[in-house]
């Protein structure tokens, strides 16, 4: 059949035997997602065309995570509009308050997405779910409104770029370093309109969380989706969690690829993306002396329990450097609970860090850690565009949790080896 995993999922959801790159297909969606910023526009469109119901009240999900807990009257008004809509149309998966987590961490954790799904989301980081062997891609609010009504969405079948990952990652190197390294190689439009598929013997060394981080940043290379075929690690992750029946897809041995890349673990040091593009990467050994004012550990990219645990391992028994603010944001209530129960909060609080409730907050310059003019942050988030975390004349550096934790202790960007 010579199809890639992405082509197979699209074909199945379009009711076709096969598809090929460039073909336009109308697909059934398994789940439609929006957040407190994008849902209000979808809802306005929904009402404007006079729709009477959502396609399936169990398969529409709203997560109020961006400006949550509501940062001001305007954002509270937007969330209220979404809440009222959810109540009116019986949308049960509406998350705010203490049930809310950052959407792309919350949905896999709660088993709302799983292998073989086709997920549409009015948020660019919807591509995260590709880590489960699903096709997931971000769209705008109007495309989402159409999917909320019809349960369908149109796609142009993307060409696929194959990344053959080999070797065992070095100590402290995680999913963030792998994806920053790749984006550094191909650029922020290196995968424009394409699918990024990951295979190779490195995959077995990558935890499910590493894979979420890698797929999460597919959009930072311009890709339509990122994807790993589900293996035993993924099957174990979704067991007892995924609320529907998983369907496992994989690429045919003779699948067609637009390009192939060999990525070797030996070449991947801890990575840092300098301002103002995620592709502006350097290995930690070539960072130089970069002082920071703030460190953020969190977001849909790196706010999972394993990220917090890595950070805590480095921070334990130390203090955040004088003049530096460390903000730790667990991505979901469950992660909060686990971090509290296992003593991670104590480690962070003893180090004089700020520990927040789940929110996208500072990642998009929303709230909970905004930068002043001239300030500099190192963060485990996904974008370092000009002004992303606050003042247009502030700077954002991206890295994984190990570099972030070490940086908070040293006050300058560095490797964990420098503080341990």
């Amino acid at each position: 059949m010579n199809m890639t995993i992405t082509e197979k999922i699209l074909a199945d959801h379009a009711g076709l035997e096969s598809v090929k790159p460039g073909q336009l297909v109308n697909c059934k969606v398994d789940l439609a997602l929006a957040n407190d910023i994008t849902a209000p526009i979808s809802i306005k469109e929904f009402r404007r065309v006079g729709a009477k119901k959502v396609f399936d009240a169990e398969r529409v999900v709203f997560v109020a995570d961006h400006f949550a807990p509501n940062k001001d009257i305007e954002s509270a008004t937007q969330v209220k509009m979404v809440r009222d809509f959810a109540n009116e149309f019986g949308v049960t998966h509406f998350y705010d308050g203490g049930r809310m987590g950052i959407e792309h961490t919350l949905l896999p954790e709660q088993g709302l997405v799983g292998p073989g799904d086709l997920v549409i989301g009015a948020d660019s980081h919807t591509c995260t779910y590709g880590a489960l062997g699903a096709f997931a891609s971000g769209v705008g609010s109007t495309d989402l409104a159409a999917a909320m009504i019809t349960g369908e969405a149109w796609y142009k079948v993307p060409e696929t770029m194959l990344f053959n990952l080999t070797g065992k990652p070095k100590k402290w190197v995680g999913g963030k370093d792998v994806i920053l390294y790749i984006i550094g190689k191909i650029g922020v439009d290196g995968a424009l309109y394409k699918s990024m598929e990951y295979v190779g013997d490195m995959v077995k060394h990558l935890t499910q969380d590493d894979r979420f981080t890698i797929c999460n940043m597919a959009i930072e290379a311009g890709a339509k989706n990122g994807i790993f075929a589900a293996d035993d690690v993924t099957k174990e992750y979704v067991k007892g969690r995924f609320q529907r029946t998983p369907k496992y897809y994989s690429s045919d041995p003779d699948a067609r690829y637009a390009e192939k890349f060999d990525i070797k673990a030996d070449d991947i040091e801890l990575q840092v993306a300098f301002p103002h593009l995620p592709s502006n990467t350097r290995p930690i050994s070539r960072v130089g002396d970069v002082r920071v004012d703030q460190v953020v550990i969190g977001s849909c990219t790196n706010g999972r329990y394993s990220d917090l645990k890595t950070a805590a391992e480095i921070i334990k028994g130390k203090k955040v450097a004088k003049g530096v603010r460390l903000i730790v944001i667990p991505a979901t209530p469950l992660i909060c609970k686990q971090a509290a129960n296992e003593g991670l909060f104590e480690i962070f609080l003893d180090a004089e860090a700020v520990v927040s409730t789940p929110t996208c907050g500072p990642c998009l310059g929303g709230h909970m850690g905004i930068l002043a003019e001239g300030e500099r942050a190192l963060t485990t988030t996904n974008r370092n565009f000009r002004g992303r975390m606050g003042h247009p004349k502030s700077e954002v550096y991206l890295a994984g949790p190990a570099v972030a934790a070490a940086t908070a202790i040293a006050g300058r960007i560095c490797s964990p080896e420098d503080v341990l």
Partner: protein
Amino acid sequence: MSEKTFRGRAHLFGDNIDTDAIIPARYMVTSEPAELAKHVMEDADPDFAKNVRKGDVIVAKKNFGCGSSREHAPVAIKAAGVSCVIAKSFARIFYRNAFNMGLPIFESSDAPDKIKPGDELTVDMNTGVITNLTKNEKYVAAPIPEFMQKLIADGGLMASIKKKIS
């Protein structure tokens, strides 16, 4: 000049203009077009909203609209009076959003290198021919895919949905 021809001055931008530059998240506590238009392109050119005139054209290099999925970006551009955007390439979510919002966009490999700030342009929506009246040059944009043309002819995505459900 037909109804489908735009005329305006060129405003130039570089590579990878992201949606945070087009409309920073700090203003996204609303989705009102007029409010968003006040801050359009603010982090790339703080004076843009003040200087832009109805009909003007944004001309950018590659990967215009990368980053967030926010539809507020094409909404803000359109509400500011910009008639169309010409770029070497567009990020995929922005591309879809622009069509859904009725903001015409054109891909051209050469026009963004030849057009200078303030050049007076006309753009023919049907043929994709861009005329630089200041320099007396013509460039041709890539034709809009047939599927997208049909979507536009139907009045956009939501109009076709409306037809389906009524």
